[in-house]
């Protein structure tokens, strides 16, 4: 009896059924895609925030006051690859080594000391156990560098800061003399900061020029971090063992810095605080905003679905009257309506989930250029919620319907 009645319901009232399924589907789609956006946005924005630059600076540990000025000690270039072996290695999105030195530049008749910096511009590292190469260098820590011309990829080329170039009347393609060796200016660099007054080249080139094989002055690291909270600001030296482990295993900028310090011999690593703190502030605000927005929109879609369901089912009050007149008992009516609601919930929920997959994918691609991951937990959760809403939406009309006198209903007056 039930299957036949159900079939009759659906076939006779196609439009009504479609409306209800659409309502549940739309509500599910909105809820599921919003939840996905809300949970994914933090990690996507965290990656975007790395465009602000390196958030960890590694320098040689100072030993004694004399080391404060000039460069008394260096870090080892050979330690660099160990950076991608630390506990939080997957959060390390980039790093770049730098060697600083003063060189004598001869350009025409001008002779002057200039600040020279040797670094990696774009260095692909093959890490053990990883399929694709890890890209290190300037491109991974300072994406805002604007070079007119090209980077100094040849061993005899240099990039000159634009302010310095203007002062010395240098252009791309010109020749300069550094420490007696001839170099060609392959590009001019503009950042707005002190780089505009320096001369850049490949790390190996400057090492050769200064006679310092395998030496680096400092390293900049770009890492995805968990925003700092009160616990994270505690001095690690004063933490208990459990606290220390918790701190170490959470990706705070301070704990990641400590891990990098451990693998770079003789180093001291500390957060670049203005970058780290800005990130933390932006992520916190964004997370809260999206969370609250999601709650708002979820309530809205639940009510939206609810109103449609209630309205759709209210009109079927007559049908209930008819059923009662034909001898159906209350249990039978309740079963019928509930079964309908379950079918609508399942069907609408499935359509809604598929729709939400498409929505999240589009939003992710449009805004961040990558897809958002829809968490597996979402599927049973959304389905469950759609079912609950469908059933709840059926309760009111059912409750109303059961109190109706068939004759009254059949006469067309409520």
């Amino acid at each position, binding site marked *: 009896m039930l299957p036949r009645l159900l079939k009759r319901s659906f076939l006779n009232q196609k439009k*009504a059924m479609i*409306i209800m399924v*659409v309502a549940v589907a*739309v509500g599910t*789609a*909105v809820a599921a895609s*919003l939840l996905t956006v809300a949970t994914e946005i933090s990690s996507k*924005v965290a990656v*975007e*925030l790395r*465009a*602000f*630059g390196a958030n960890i*600076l590694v320098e040689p540990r*100072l*030993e004694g*006051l004399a*080391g*404060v*000025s000039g460069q008394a000690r260096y870090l080892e270039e050979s330690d660099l690859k160990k950076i991608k072996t630390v506990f939080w290695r997957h959060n390390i999105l980039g790093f770049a080594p730098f060697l600083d030195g003063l060189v004598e530049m001869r350009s025409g008749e001008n002779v002057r000391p200039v600040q020279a910096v040797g670094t990696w511009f774009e260095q692909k590292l093959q890490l053990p156990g990883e399929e694709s190469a890890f890209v290190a260098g300037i491109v991974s820590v300072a*994406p*805002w560098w604007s070079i007119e011309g090209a980077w100094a990829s040849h061993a005899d080329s240099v990039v000159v800061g634009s302010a310095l170039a203007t002062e010395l009347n240098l252009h791309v393609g010109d020749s300069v003399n550094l420490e007696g060796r001839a170099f060609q200016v392959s590009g001019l660099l503009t*950042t*707005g*900061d002190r780089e505009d007054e320096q001369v850049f080249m490949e790390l190996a080139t400057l090492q050769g020029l200064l006679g310092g094989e395998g030496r680096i002055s400092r390293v900049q690291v770009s890492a995805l971090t968990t925003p700092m909270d009160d616990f994270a600001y505690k001095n690690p030296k004063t933490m208990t063992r459990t606290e220390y482990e918790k701190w170490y295993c959470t990706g705070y900028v301070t704990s990641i810095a400590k891990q990098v310090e451990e693998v770079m011999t003789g180093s*001291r690593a500390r*957060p*670049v*605080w*203005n*970058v780290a*703190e*800005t990130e933390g*502030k*932006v992520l916190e*605000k*964004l997370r*809260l*905003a999206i969370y*609250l*927005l999601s709650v708002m*929109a979820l309530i*809205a*879609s639940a*009510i*939206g*679905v609810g*109103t*449609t369901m*209630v*309205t*759709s089912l*209210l*009109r079927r009050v007559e049908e209930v009257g008819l059923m009662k007149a034909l001898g159906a008992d209350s249990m039978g009516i309740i079963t019928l309506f509930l079964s309908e609601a379950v079918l609508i919930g399942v069907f609408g929920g499935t359509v809604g989930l598929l729709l939400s997959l498409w929505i999240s994918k*589009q*939003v992710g691609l*449009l*805004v961040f250029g990558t897809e958002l991951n829809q968490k597996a937990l979402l599927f049973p959760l959304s389905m469950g919620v759609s079912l609950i809403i469908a059933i709840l939406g059926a309760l009111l009309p059912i409750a109303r319907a059961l109190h109706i006198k068939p004759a009254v209903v059949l006469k*067309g*007056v409520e």
Partner: protein
Amino acid sequence: MKGFRWFVFFLGRSVSQRWMRMVIAALSVTLAVSVIVGMAGLSLGIREKLGDALKAYGANIIVSSVDGRNMPAEAWSAVRSLPSVASVLPQLYGQIRIQDVPVELIGTDMDTVRSQGWRMKGEWPSSPGQVAVGSSLGEVLGVGAGDPLELMGSTGVETFTVTGFFERGSDADRGLMVGLKDAGRLLAMPDQLSALLVRSRGEIAEAVPEISRSYAGISVKGLRQIAQAETSLLAKIQLLMALVTVVVVGACVISVGSTMGATVLERREEIGLMKAIGGTRRSVSLFYLSEAGTIGLLGGLLGWPLGFISAQAVSRGAFGSYISVPHILGVAGLVLGLVIAVLAGHFPVRDAMKPRAAEILRGE
């Protein structure tokens, strides 16, 4: 029955017989409008709020002297009063000696520094003769807060008191910071500044020309590092908000549509009745449209303050302050409610009006 009486009769019938359904329909419109108003308001406000959070980065413009030497201190007062400037940090750079070792010294305005919220263990200097030590330098000096520190400048050896240790995560950590007057004296550069670190109030592109015009002989450069990252991030967040709004608005419109559609489906008999007792096709559609319109207006009326309140609630919760929602949004909300309801209501009406009166009355 014709005209106005006909109209009133059916309106009364609607209200008395299906007030619950009308309330629900109005509710769905309220919801749609409040979501639209709320999210539109938030989208406008989020740019401003995130912009505030991004200020924690610090300066995004560097002002220095064109010839590479120092500037007169009055450049600071010229720049700080400009409307496009949010904050200015004056800097005087030089070297002094500690135990005959050259150490970098930065002279700055301690009141401005204190408001920046930089990491500091201890206190920033608040009177002359006090010095803040960078964390790297502090590790090798072996002094604590309150201890004396001898600085050798152009005037000979002066004893300063250490007030605290700062950490920037830059090479400033190997140096010291003192007040501008002390620095001017120690470095024999009285009333001079090496640079002004400026944070713009709005876009860098607007601030740079204004700053350049405010004083002669200065070079004003925007920091590419921040400019690009900020613009890109804010643009992405706004796009995200817009897309989310579109999705939710679309869902709301569909939900209103299906609510109205469900309402009208059942009224085929009523339509038949209307036509039978004197309604023309025109008056029937007019009736339903005005019913939908009333629902829309009422729903919109309620939806606008609801949307406003929820937008403010989100803003307060997330950003700790309120956003300024333009009042045009309220009018737009009302109009929107009207449009949505009429639009959503007119399709099912058109569809339901197709069959003939007699057929409906017979119940087929």
